[in-house]
């Protein structure tokens, strides 16, 4: 008998919650699966006792997993509750609803499906947290499945997404695996030479293949130099004997804890007793977010646009790493934006080197996602120049400056703004009084079109130059916008034009235009509605933050929005933005053009359900916003 993963296992392992199972659990699950086929149009019956009760291997169905084809679930009245396709699963309990109304399952397209026995499902839930959580949440959530009316707030289960942080990586991922060692009888001097030669900060001391000690930089300083010991002495007199070790299969947090509690910075990594590498505190830091620092350093040292663009090339790789490490979307947005800011500032400095010092003070402004610190890979640039109101400004200088910076940003991975909102466009390189006039026009005589085009300007952040200019303009805009109900109603109507992609029965409404047939636009339909919402509330109450999450947090504290709604929106934003980032990470890895489109089929059923919940939160919040601000222009 050959033991190997069969087709069932190969399929299960790709789909949650089964991807969380261990190999033996997976084997157990697959051996308790019965495969069946139903042609389109037929009804699936999931009742417990199967047709022939006399058959010896009778089983109660616990879960149904769609292998291919699709099914739909309807209420007794024929209302559509959900559609499921390959990789989706259905708990039998959801259908044979205890007490409540039971549901019917119809085959939409020829369907090959797996039946997992109830007994196996229950046994798995005893050993697998993902499955027990699933069964638990099903108990509480079934009525919600039927309920499509607008309710207060929906809880989001994002917990499972916050799984492994970088510290739960195994030690072997972060350690340096070259074992450089010396004998305890070697001289201190030869040890120091060895360390210099290999550029390492610690040396393992082995005797007859046994680890007997460790010698570090710090030992050389504090035990040799500071005490005036001759470098011809043997290592054993100054080394740390029987050092603390860490097993190669431990996790980084174990290693980190050990370093903290022992007050050491180096841990030999052992496999049984054999040293296989060494882990330093900086290895752990590097496993976290040390790269952004080195990248920022590279940016600040670049002397030409070329060097700058070379440094910027490292950004996508870094971002993909952060995504894979499950960094929060809001943090990734801030990190990407901090690079854009850094690159912009550096470009301005390089421009100044080339063009000479500016003839007068000015402020470089960022708009849109850069202003909100919510950039993603490939976000385009939106910026402008704010000049003083003095007469006689030599615009040719600023025109050249803007051109230099805009071109540089484009070369560094921030493409030109398709709407031409850039400082090199004369319209967006103006004195304060002109800028003020722009905003007065938008706020006091708003037209739907103007509002649509101007919303990004209301997210404005100072990047370089004289910050007082920016402050003045920001203050002016906030004062004008506050309590201007017509303007807010217009903004509100504009925001409502981006609605979450939910059909009436909690099904996704997919984009079906052009290249992106049947995909979700996670930006337009997911994050933008939340961003718009937060902006409108913030403008209505003159709140200063620009970042959507910070706005939502402050809105709650200031009582502008209910606690439930703001928290739900924060969760929903994090969730949708996270999925968008994940998809972009995958696209980048797969060398596919990075965009905001996602085929919901690529999502696991679990995530898909949660995504629907997240969209529902957005829809509820939009309705509340319309009641509060909307003039009903639409």
């Amino acid at each position, binding site marked *: 008998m050959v033991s190997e993963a*069969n087709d069932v296992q190969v399929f299960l392992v790709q789909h949650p919650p089964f991807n969380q199972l261990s190999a033996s659990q997976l084997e157990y699950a697959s051996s308790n699966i019965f*495969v069946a086929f139903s042609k389109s149009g037929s009804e699936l019956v999931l009742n417990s006792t199967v047709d022939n009760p006399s058959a010896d291997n009778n089983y109660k169905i616990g879960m149904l997993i769609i292998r291919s084809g699709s099914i739909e679930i309807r209420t007794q009245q024929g209302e559509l509750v959900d559609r499921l396709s390959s990789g989706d699963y259905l708990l039998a309990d959801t259908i044979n609803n205890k007490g409540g109304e039971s549901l019917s399952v119809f085959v939409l397209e020829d369907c090959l499906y797996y039946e997992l026995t109830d007994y196996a499902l229950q046994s798995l839930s005893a050993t697998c947290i993902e499955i027990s959580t699933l069964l638990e949440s099903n108990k509480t959530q079934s009525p919600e499945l039927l309920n499509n009316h607008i309710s207060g707030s929906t809880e989001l289960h994002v917990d499972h997404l916050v799984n492994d942080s970088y510290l739960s990586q195994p030690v072997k991922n972060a350690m340096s695996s070259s074992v450089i060692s010396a004998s305890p009888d070697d001289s201190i001097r030869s040890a120091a030479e060895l360390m210099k030669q290999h550029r390492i900060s610690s040396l393992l001391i082995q005797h007859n293949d046994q680890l007997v000690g460790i010698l570090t930089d710090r030992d050389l300083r504090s035990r040799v130099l500071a005490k005036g010991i001759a470098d011809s002495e043997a290592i054993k007199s100054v080394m740390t004997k029987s050092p603390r070790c860490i097993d190669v299969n431990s996790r980084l947090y174990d290693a980190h804890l050990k370093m903290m509690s022992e007050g050491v910075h180096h841990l030999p990594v052992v496999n049984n007793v054999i040293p296989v590498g060494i882990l330093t505190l900086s290895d752990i830091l590097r496993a976290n977010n040390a790269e952004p620092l080195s990248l920022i350093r590279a940016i600040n040292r670049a002397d030409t646009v070329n060097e700058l663009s070379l440094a910027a090339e490292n950004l996508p790789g870094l971002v993909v790493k952060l995504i894979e490490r499950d960094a929060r979307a809001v943090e990734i947005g801030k990190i990407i934006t901090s690079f854009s800011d850094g690159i912009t500032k550096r470009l301005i400095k390089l421009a100044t080197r080339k063009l000479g010092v500016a003839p007068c003070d000015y402020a470089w402004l960022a708009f849109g996602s850069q202003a909100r610190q919510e950039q993603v890979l490939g976000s385009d640039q939106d910026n402008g120049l704010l000049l003083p109101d003095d007469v006689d400004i030599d615009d040719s200088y600023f025109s050249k400056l803007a051109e230099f910076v805009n071109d540089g940003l484009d070369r560094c991975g921030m493409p030109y703004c398709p709407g031409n909102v850039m400082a090199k466009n004369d319209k967006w390189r103006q004195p304060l009084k002109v800028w003020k006039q722009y905003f007065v026009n938008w706020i006091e005589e708003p037209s739907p079109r103007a509002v649509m085009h101007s919303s990004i300007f209301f997210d404005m952040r100072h990047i370089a130059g004289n910050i007082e200019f920016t402050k003045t303009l920001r203050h002016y805009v906030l004062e004008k916008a506050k309590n201007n109900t017509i303007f807010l109603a217009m903004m509100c109507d504009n925001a409502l034009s981006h609605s979450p992609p939910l059909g009436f029965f909690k099904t996704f409404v997919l984009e079906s235009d052009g290249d992106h047939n049947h995909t979700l636009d996670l930006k337009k339909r997911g994050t933008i509605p939340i961003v718009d919402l937060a902006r409108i509330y913030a403008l209505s109450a003159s709140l200063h933050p620009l970042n959507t999450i910070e706005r939502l947090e402050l809105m709650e504290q200031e009582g502008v929005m209910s606690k439930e709604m703001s928290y739900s929106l924060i969760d929903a934003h994090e969730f949708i933005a996270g999925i968008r980032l994940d998809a972009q990470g995958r696209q980048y890895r797969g060398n596919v053009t990075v965009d905001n489109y996602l085929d919901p089929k690529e999502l696991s059923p679990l995530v898909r359900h949660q995504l629907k919940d997240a969209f529902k939160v957005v829809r509820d919040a939009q309705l509340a916003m319309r009641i509060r601000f909307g003039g009903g222009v639409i």
Partner: protein
Amino acid sequence: MLYKLCTHIQQWRFNEKAIDTPLQPLYQEPYIPASQAFLNTRFLVLDCEMSGLDSENCQLLSIGWVMIERGRIVSSSAKHLLIHADRGTGDSSKIHGLFDVNIAGANSVATVLMLLMRQIPGAVLVFHHASLDIRFLQKATLETFRCPLLFAYVDTMVIEKKRLQLQGKMNGLRLAQCRQRYGLPDSAQHNALADAQATAELFLAQASYLGEGQASLSLSELSLSCAR
């Protein structure tokens, strides 16, 4: 009725020879009536890998099987058995990924056939392109036990061929092509077990489309035959 007649003739011809061999139960088993319902039948879906197509010079390399009961593939019944080869695996190892080194730890052909025979009584066997697999199985059984296997079987390729003829079509009959017509997913692996499972899924799909569907289907609608 050809099926019934053929079964009786085989029983009569080899009954004596089968006595005191592991094949005896097969010859004493009452034959499965063609009127038996699909859902009440146990099917043993089988696929063999051989070192070539010519049964004179080539041999069995592995057998995979899986059971269908009450219209459900019973995953826990899946078996994949490798067989000792006297000669090297030759060209077909490129297709099946079976190399001499894999086969070194395999079972003797007698062991594998005995295991198979234990599954046969009461079951209808299912193959895709049955004649090829049966030719190899019978040759191996004759060489080992001096008596051929006796079993009832259906061929998913024959079922598909008839269906296409009724529709006036002439399409490909390879396993993957047949599966595609029922919207079944591509399978990534190609070994005896994976192909047996793929055949089993195809068979379930075909049964759903035959007559009034699985629930009212009987064996007579499946072109039941008897192995010789």
